[in-house]
Each structure stands twice: as C-alpha cells, then as structure tokens.
C-alpha cells in the first residue's frame, strides 16, 4: 500500500473525523460533553470548563492536521506522528498514574484496549507509513 494510496485516505479521514468531532464538542459545549459523553466523566471530578476547552483544542488541532493530510499525502507522516505523539504521551500518563496508584487497581485492564492497544496501532501505522514513503522515494530516485 503506497503512502499516497486511497486506503490511507480512508484511515486519515475517519481518524480526523473522530478528533474533529470530539474537539468541537468539547470547545462548543463543555457542559454538554461532560454530561452526555457515554461515560462517567464526572467520576473524575467536577467540571472545569476551561480545562475541557484546553483539551478540546488539542483534539481539534490533531483533527485539522489529519484532515489536511487526507488531501496532501506528503503531509501524512507529519500529521500521523503529531497524533501518535499526543496519544502516546497520554498512554504514558496512564502508565505513570497507574503505577503511583492515582488510578484505581486493575485500571490497566480497562486501559488495555482504548489507551494502550490503540496507541500501539498508531505506532505501527506510523512506521508503516514512514517505510512506504521511503520506498516511494527510493523508487522515484532509482
């Protein structure tokens, strides 16, 4: 699968849509997001609208970068590394908070899929995309 291929476009478009939707929701109506996200976000503590908007900004920026990458194949690796860095850093925060006991015992079981496995998927995709781009460059120069 070449780095400019259609399947990559599908991956980037869907990933962008999720980030844009979540980011816009957090920025537009933090209170609605806090209550209506299908989860018990309030279990983490009271709403801080400012913090929700802060986090919404990064989701929005990642979504914008990924959306640009849908139409600009040469920007895809940069955008994917940007997103992977954020998701990877978030996973490391979970590791740290689990080890020091801030997150409850057994938390890693819940985090395994949505936090750790999906971050791993992003790392694999980043490596794959980087290799595809290298292969493409080699083919053009050769």
């Amino acid at each position, binding site marked *: 699968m070449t780095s400019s291929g259609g399947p990559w476009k*599908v991956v980037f478009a869907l990933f962008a849509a*999720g980030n844009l939707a979540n980011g816009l929701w957090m920025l537009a109506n933090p209170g609605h997001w806090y209550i209506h*996200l299908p989860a018990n976000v309030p279990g983490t503590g009271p*709403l801080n609208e400012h913090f929700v908007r802060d986090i919404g900004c990064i989701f929005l920026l990642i979504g914008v970068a990924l959306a640009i990458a849908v139409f600009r194949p040469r920007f895809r690796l940069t955008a994917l590394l940007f997103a992977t860095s954020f*998701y990877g850093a978030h996973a490391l925060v979970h590791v740290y908070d689990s080890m020091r006991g801030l997150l*409850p015992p057994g938390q890693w*079981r819940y985090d395994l899929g*949505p*936090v750790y496995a999906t971050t791993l*998927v992003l790392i694999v995709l980043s490596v794959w995309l980087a290799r595809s781009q290298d292969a493409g460059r080699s083919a053009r120069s050769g």
Partner: protein
Amino acid sequence: MKGALAYVAATVVGLVLFAMPFLWYGLGGGHSHVAAPHSDHGARHGGHLLMLYDYHLELVEHRDSVELYLSDVSRRPLRPDSCAAAFDDHRPTPCEWRSHRSVVAKPIGAQTGIYQVWVGEGPPLMLKFP
C-alpha cells in the same frame, strides 16, 4: 480483490481510530469510575451533599445564588425536569439550567431554603436546608 481488502482493512482501522477519543472515556474504565450505589457521598463541587431517596443533590451556596447538582444513585449527573427554591418563606423561585447545573437566585442574607426538584413523573423531591 487485494485493493478491496485494503479498503476494508483501512475502514476498520479508521473506525477504531475514529472512536479513540471517545473510547478513552467511554468504556467504564479509563478516566471513568462509576460508583457503586450509595457508595459515594462526597461533595464534588465544594458544597453540601444531600440524599433524596435514590438521588443525590449537592448544594453550593453563594452570596446571592445556589447551584444544584443532581446525580443518580451512582453519582451520574442528571438534568432535572425543573426545580425551584423558596428562601425564608418567600415564594418559590424557579431554577435556571446553566451549562451543567441548575442555578437559583437567593435573596442576600437568606437563611433557609426549601428545594423542590422534579425528575420524571410523580411528585417533586423536596428538602429543606439547612
């Protein structure tokens, strides 16, 4: 055939990635900690937590208003159908929903409030505080 499979795989991977921001908060784990019924009676907004049957109501008193945070038996937040409060035998004042909580105006210096909260059908939940 190979090309079609690539698109299917890309769609599956894409959908997983699409859901990622929401999955963080949505699988009962992650950042989420649903309390067992009646196991969590801590105030989360710096106010007073009160029980109303299977509901929790946290009152945060300010000089000229009171914020009401309603939650269910497991502390999941709820938006009441409506609510009102009467202070020091004055007439009830309806609450206003603001962002994520109900807010009711309070006369400055008022001592006691009688709160009424409507959730679903049936009579309102009522309590007097303090």
